């Protein structure tokens, strides 16, 4: 009864999920920038699917394949134009089996 719960990396968590990726049509884009704002930088830590990462120039990039469409990045970074956010086309994106 005391078996330890294995600590999973987020990539392994996302591997449990079902996605239908729309190739060549990412639904989130980061606008080109010199230096990320505090909110944009925060996404590299707080995005629950770890979709945002810093490149070697210190700019934030996104790969939205593992996105769970929660909208956290939209709430923080859409209003000031740092990211462009759309829902995936109908049927694409994350498909929760349990939800």
């Amino acid at each position: 009864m005391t078996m330890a719960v294995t600590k999973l990396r987020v990539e392994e968590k996302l591997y449990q999920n079902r996605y239908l990726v729309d190739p060549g049509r990412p639904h989130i884009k980061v606008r080109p920038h010199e230096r990320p704002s505090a909110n944009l930088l925060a996404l590299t830590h707080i995005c629950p699917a770890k979709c945002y990462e810093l490149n070697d120039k210190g700019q934030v990039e996104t790969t939205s394949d593992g996105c769970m469409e929660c909208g956290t990045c939209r709430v923080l970074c859409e209003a000031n134009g740092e990211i462009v956010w759309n829902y995936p086309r109908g049927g694409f994106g994350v498909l929760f089996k349990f939800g």
Partner: protein
Amino acid sequence: MIEQEFDAIVVGAGMSGNAAAYTMASQGLTVLQLERGEYPGSKNVQGAIMYADMLEQIIPDFRDDAPLERHLVEQRFWVMDDTSHTGMQYRSDDFNEAKPNRYTIIRAQFDKWFSRKVRQAGATVLCETTVTELVRSASGKVIGVRTDRAGGPIYADVVVLAEGVNGLLGTRAGLRKMPKPESVALAVKEMHFLPDEVIEQRFGLQGDEGCVIEAAGTISRSMAGLAFLYTNKESISLGIGCLVSDFAQTMESPYVLLDNFKNHPSIRPLIAGSEVKEYSAHLIPEGGYKAIPQLFGDGWVAVGDAAQLNNAIHREGSNLAMTSGRIAGEAIIEIKGRNQPMIRRNLALYKTMLDKSFVVKDLMKYKDMPALIHTNSRNFFMTYPQLMSQAAQNFMRVDGTPKIEKEKATTAAFIKARSRWGLISDVVRLALAWR
């Protein structure tokens, strides 16, 4: 795609959208419901607890065939620090009633069932269809929607925006503002599968009885947040959520919080040996009464999470969603019955009816709580939980220290951490916001 003009278009097949579509279709209105997911529920995330009364008002005999997991007989509330929990527990056999009050559900399954009821009531439900834009007349009235399917716009007298907390349509059309980071929580959740007899044994349950644990404290690392563990039949839904503004400030990773919660010594044995089959994330409206946006206008109404209708204090969301959807549907039916146009002046009936319901009354009661908790999160989610744990441990550990000294030490610790004035002020502010 579809040539017919509808009485109503419902955007979204979650709790509020299904309630609205069902209510209207079952009264003979022509209803088109559009859902972007592959099936209803495939985009929906909730804890999830479902309150029977609110569904009963829509589908009285839902217990006959709805996919319900366990009816709740026990609720625990835990204040946690890193190694302990101080708990309140309520369990009653009264909840083993013929028509139980609360159930755990799995949304993907529940929403499929609810959607089947909507179709049986006569609505047209179209999945894999993302609504991209609202169509407006020259005067600005919403008269239909455009979707990402081939073909022109689809028209209706009224559009019900049941598009959820992250609804793009309403914000893009300028009908409401985007939720503020301090009025939405980001919650992450995992589904842990275990044999039903193991769940029953670990939580002291029999048959379909269920237990809920809700927990706050240092697990949210001084952010305003709450963790939960809900027992389903053969799985445990387990998650944690904190305000987006707090996440942005602390830069904590939600999955790290979740793993720490899972590894807490009070939680770990409850999920030991489980198989994780899904990881999900979702925003929860937490702004309460003061965050409710404009709810109606010319040719449209907003319901459920899109309208920020969530009682964060009591963790009630889906029942406010279902009730707002039902009430919007009833208002539309009444306006239609009077042969009146679906314009702002007439659709105000929806808000009038909603204001009279528990939905707005409950949110009004706690209108000052979100701001209080948000601006005092360090005290409520770090300092007090630690003090409570120290006090309890001090009281229970028998080590030859005279009791009077133990009491003095506990009092001193509280005063040192928050000062006399701080303690009084916290109590008064909490009482005022709760009243």
